[in-house]
């Protein structure tokens, strides 16, 4: 599945995304964040405070309890600041 990072999440991780296979047992956004946090020190820093991170599944805003599947595009980013 395609994982995308934006703004300071991208900067802390040091790249714009990851292409991963959804590991067994990871079923939702919250679980996916815990999995990604273990990938590298940069990931750990980015996901240190999950409540500071927002997510989207297939280009729609998602909540921590929303389900993810292997074909999804999932994005992680800070709360938006446009306008």
């Amino acid at each position, binding site marked *: 599945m395609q994982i995308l990072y934006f703004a300071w999440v991208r900067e802390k991780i040091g790249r714009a995304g990851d292409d991963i296979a959804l590991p067994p047992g990871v079923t939702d956004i919250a679980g996916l964040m815990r999995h990604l946090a273990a990938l590298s020190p940069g990931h750990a820093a980015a996901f240190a405070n999950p409540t500071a991170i927002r997510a989207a599944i297939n280009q729609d805003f998602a909540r921590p309890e929303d389900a993810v599947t292997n074909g999804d595009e999932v994005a992680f980013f800070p709360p938006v*600041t*446009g*306008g």
Partner: protein
Amino acid sequence: MARIAVQEAEFDVSAETALLTAGRRDIGAVASFIGICRADDGLAAMVLEHYPAMTERAMQKIAAEAQSRWPLTGCTLIHRVGRLEPGAPIVLVLTASAHRQAALESCAFLMDWLKTKAPFWKREEFTQGAARWVEARAEDDAAAQKW
């Protein structure tokens, strides 16, 4: 019914207003909002990042919500991305309706929702070389929730 654009280039308010009202005789009011980059605390520039695959889709949803709540003949949402210096326009919202109340209210609504429900992020660059990501403001969330 909604014209949505995400672009680096500056927008032309007169041309956009003409486009919104062209060929119509039922519009009695056009409301506009232009957001402009402000030079707070020695700001040199603002760099706007977005999530290209999601941005226009999110803006279409916001526009559809406005059109379901107010009797609009049309609306325009244009958001710039990239590096913008103080004084540069960032965002344009135009709403058109038969009467002013719908135009004015929906224009305010669209801005409140654009700030909190479209995937844009602002990074501030300062004259001394420092840079920081703008943090979301609780006031903006409260403004979006009041509608």
